[in-house]
């Protein structure tokens, strides 16, 4: 039996510590990890909880992140509650096994502290690791601050382990900006947190010796497609389960989460769509623009990046007088428009409203995103709205030194 950990009603925790406490409170059976900046303190924390008797589990040191996720898949297939953490290069090395975890329907929780991918080598936060894994078949939840990193990690176990879902879940938080920033966090006491997460219910576990099962079978064209379709449907259908569990969490804590978060949107004419901590900075920009300049600005933020809230994005766009949107991508787009721009645009294309949408690549390698820059971007959207067409290149770079960089023009209204 694990010892109870003394927790105050109000703690000052950074995102890493918050996530590690959530892993402890969920009484994770196995963490297999290869620590990497900036996510190291999450697994370091779990290791110390094991060593000091605060969790009844196993910390497995491995020789790489590929091995870490492989060990997680094995432990999950055996029938345990499993979690780990990674960032950036470590995430990239895990990539192959991420697809195994989701295809094998193992509800592993991966806390991802988002960090830029080399080259150039960089330890600071951007979303290139999150974007790299977006098609890996995992549920992707996105925390904008330390409190949310804690809350969503607890929710992740409930969501992934739900018998109608059984999929692995990533909980993203911004490297340094969230992971290393201490803020006020209202944690649950151990008992309440564990009661919310619940006992682990194994499915098809290999340690059930009365029912021998094969995991990780090979299928060729005769079976593969059907299995991937079933997996995709489970991911798409997880939307309702996510909403149910967010509702349960609200009933317990009063803290409300939605698949798409919106701020000041009811009467908004212009908006920023973003992920991560930038969402909060953009909110501040929208508030100030409304107060100081009378610009009706708002913010749209996919809380659940996968399954992508195509349905809710459409509702949001048709439910407001939006005329121009800036989709902010914190990942180098590699010869395309940013992923968030593409997905928001695809959803918007099937709306009545069809606002003008432009794309900003920003914040790469931890480049600071200021309130002033968010305001400038929103004001640019106001200029598009007033002109009735996009007045700048469709893709631009924000916060970049040197001559202005942008691609593609249109006068289409």
């Amino acid at each position: 039996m694990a010892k109870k950990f003394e927790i105050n009603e109000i703690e000052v925790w950074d995102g890493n510590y918050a996530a590690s406490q959530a892993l402890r409170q969920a009484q994770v059976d196995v963490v297999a990890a290869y620590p990497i900046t900036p996510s190291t303190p999450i697994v370091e924390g779990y290791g110390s909880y094991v060593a000091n008797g605060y969790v009844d589990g196993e910390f497995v040191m491995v020789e790489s992140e590929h091995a870490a996720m492989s060990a997680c898949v094995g432990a999950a297939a055996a029938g345990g509650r499993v979690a780990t953490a990674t960032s950036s290069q470590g995430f990239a090395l895990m990539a192959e096994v991420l697809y195994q975890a989701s295809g094998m329907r193992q509800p592993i929780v991966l806390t991802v502290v988002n960090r830029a991918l080399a080259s150039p080598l960089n330890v600071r936060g951007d979303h290139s690791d999150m974007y790299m894994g977006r098609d890996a078949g995992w549920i992707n939840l996105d925390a904008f601050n330390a409190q949310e990193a804690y809350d969503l990690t607890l929710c992740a176990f409930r969501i992934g382990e739900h018998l109608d879902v059984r999929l692995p879940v990533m909980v993203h938080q911004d490297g340094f900006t969230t992971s290393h920033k201490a803020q006020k966090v209202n944690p649950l006491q151990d008992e309440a947190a564990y009661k919310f997460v619940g006992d682990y219910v194994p499915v098809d576990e290999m340690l059930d010796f009365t029912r021998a099962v094969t995991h990780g079978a090979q299928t060729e064209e005769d079976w593969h497609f059907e299995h991937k379709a079933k997996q995709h449907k489970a991911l798409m259908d997880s939307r309702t389960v996510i909403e149910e569990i967010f509702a349960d969490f609200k009933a317990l804590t009063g803290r409300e989460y939605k698949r798409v978060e919106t701020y000041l949107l009811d009467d908004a004419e212009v908006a920023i769509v973003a992920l991560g901590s930038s969402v909060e900075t953009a909110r501040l920009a929208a508030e100030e623009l409304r107060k100081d300049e009378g610009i009706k600005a708002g913010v749209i933020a996919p809380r659940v990046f996968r399954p992508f809230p195509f349905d809710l994005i459409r509702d949001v766009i048709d439910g407001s007088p939006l005329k121009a949107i800036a989709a902010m991508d914190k990942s180098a787009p590699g010869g395309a428009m940013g992923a968030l721009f593409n997905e928001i645009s695809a959803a918007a294309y099937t709306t009545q409203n069809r606002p003008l949408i432009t794309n900003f690549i920003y914040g790469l390698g931890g480049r600071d995103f200021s309130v002033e820059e968010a305001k400038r971007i929103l004001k640019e959207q106001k200029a598009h709205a007033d002109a009735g067409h996009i007045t700048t290149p469709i893709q631009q770079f924000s916060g970049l030194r040197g001559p202005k960089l942008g691609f593609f023009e249109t006068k289409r209204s």
Partner: protein
Amino acid sequence: MSQNVPGTAKRGIRELGAETKVGWDEVTQGVVLDSFAEPVKDVAHIRPEDRDYSDFNSYTATVASWRVLKPVYNSDICIDCQNCWVWCPDTSIISRDKQMLGIDYDHCKGCGVCVEVCPTNPKSLLMFDTNEDLDVALSQWPEKKKKEQ
């Protein structure tokens, strides 16, 4: 007849890939395949021919048609060293109590590893055309090779 492999109603009863193809709504979650048709107890101590394998266990499938050449086993020469049993990649050498019984022709793909590793002189396993009659094959067995002077 050199074959004394235990028979079973379930071994190799269908061609691999001939199983009923179901739609996406009926496939198992996570490609998990049951090994046995019913719950089992202490199955490690039950011999394969006595196990109630499921339709998705490879035991019930046959890959005999993949074979071009087949190994033929000559029990008169075999010394039961178990080398072939150790090396066979498809667990198709059937042995009981360290006594070589023969070959599981439902799962043998004809790779010839067993022949390569057989230490006797002449070899106790030799490759023949997969359609060759076993008795005919045995009647063509070579003599012991004399040491060169």
